[in-house]
């Protein structure tokens, strides 16, 4: 009999305690963050979408080599002497640019956001931004192109570079021939003899 009344008392008191708690919660501040309109502050070292400041890029390809999933694709063209790469020909830190970068793509569908590409960059031109909402309907839309060169420009520069390379090769050949002729005309150097002996 004692247990019976104790049960009733416990049931009523615990229900009343529970109800008072829920009633108090009704007037408390809401904890919901209304996401699209309201955003949480991102952590200090967050890793999100990559960005390349192509003006500073020297086309050294180190980021592409560091990438564990090879999502960075870079093509370069050697600059002909006298040609200015980009707007000024130098990076913002004053380093000389010797390569055109006609193709610099990052496939963010592949990217694993490891940030390993950021550290090797000598000019600090590739870095993580705070953009994290870039879902698309097509996977191809996640292929980001960063170069500032048009395809026509690229073709033109490549042609120039090729011509220059051929020219240089010819020059080299000539120089080599001349050197060979000189070598043939001149007496054999002493060190060869030393080796034989």
């Amino acid at each position: 009999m004692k247990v019976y009344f104790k049960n009733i008392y416990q049931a009523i008191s615990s229900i009343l305690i529970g109800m008072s708690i829920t009633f108090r919660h009704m007037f408390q501040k809401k904890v919901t963050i209304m996401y699209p309109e309201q955003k949480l502050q991102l952590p200090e070292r967050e890793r999100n979408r990559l960005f390349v400041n192509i003006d500073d890029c020297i086309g050294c390809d180190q980021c592409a080599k560091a990438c564990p999933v090879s999502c960075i694709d870079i093509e370069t063209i050697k600059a002909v002497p006298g040609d200015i790469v980009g707007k000024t020909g130098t990076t913002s830190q004053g380093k000389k640019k010797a390569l055109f970068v006609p193709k610099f793509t990052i496939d963010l569908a592949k990217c694993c956001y490891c940030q390993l590409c950021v550290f090797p960059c000598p000019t600090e031109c590739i870095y993580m931004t705070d953009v994290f909402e870039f879902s698309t309907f097509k996977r191809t839309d996640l292929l980001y192109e960063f170069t500032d060169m048009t395809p026509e420009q690229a073709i033109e520069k490549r042609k120039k570079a090729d011509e220059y390379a051929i020219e240089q090769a010819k020059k080299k050949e000539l120089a080599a021939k001349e050197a060979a002729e000189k070598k043939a005309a001149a007496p054999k150097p002493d060190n060869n003899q030393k080796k034989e002996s």
Partner: protein
Amino acid sequence: MDKFLLDIFGNELIKDLIIPIPLFAFVIVFALYAVLAERKISAFMQNRPGPNRVGGRTGILQPIVDALKLLQKEMVLPDRADKWLYWIAPFVVFLGTLMGFAIIPFSSIYVGVDLNIGLFYFFAVTSISIMGMLMGGWSSNNKYSLYGSMRSVAQIVSYEIPTALAALNVVMIAGTLSMQKFSEMQAGGIQNWFILGGPGGLSKVILIPFLVTAALILFISTLAEANRTPFDLVEADSEIVAGVHLEYAGMQMVMFLFAEYAQMFAVSGVLVTLFLGGWQSPFGEAVPFLNTPWMQFVWFIGKGLFFVFVMIWLRWTLPRLRVDQLMGLCWKYLIPIAMVCIFAVGLYLVL
């Protein structure tokens, strides 16, 4: 109201057809907005803002949008289901609840029909919805639905008893079963309400603890009859998926939902009429302008909505009972205590 309509139309039949229209409109609007209230209150209790996209921050248009969405949905008939019973079941459930509304006195001028056996009629008619539940569960050809409906029947049939016993206390004091008479007897302010002993001399003070207990028992057992948490073993999402509702979609699902929410108000209405003065103002004749027929609507619906709020509040506070606990509560606690109350009230009346 009856006489007024009879004067306008001069025809019994038209009058009878017109009387239930406001009742029906009230039930539909109430059921729609009770869903919103449920969602909002549950959200507030969990420190969330709740529905706030449709119709501003309050989400006031949410029920309409929900209803439109559900109207567009396909009505699915499960393979090898019992077709007739399956289609009829939700309407039977809703019908039982809606018929219960007929005797609920909203005001001294408005009651669907003032039967002299009103309370008895209410308990008889609301039991029809159990039949709908069993039909739905059986015909769905799904074991979870069947479990749900069997639980429902066991639960509601057992909880009819404490409901009737608790209501009997008031019936004994009032000596009537007519809902309108219950309300009229409690005139003259809060001290004359049946929860405080009803009209009578000073000796009625002895009755107060028993009548408060009876009101509590009536509230608990009608809560169980309305299949609300903590007695929602019929639905029990985490145990038997959704019980009877499991196979239903679209408008039929809505019928079940409407029945549940309408039942909430119906049982609150009965509780209010029996124990809390019905449409009487708590100030009685002291403040006459609060006791006009139109203010009586406000009092009655206000009191009813308060109990609906308590039901929602309980739902988001308490966990669900186990089946054995449910039966234990009914047979070991509610019925003996209700018996003691009846005994005490009877003794008082005899002496």
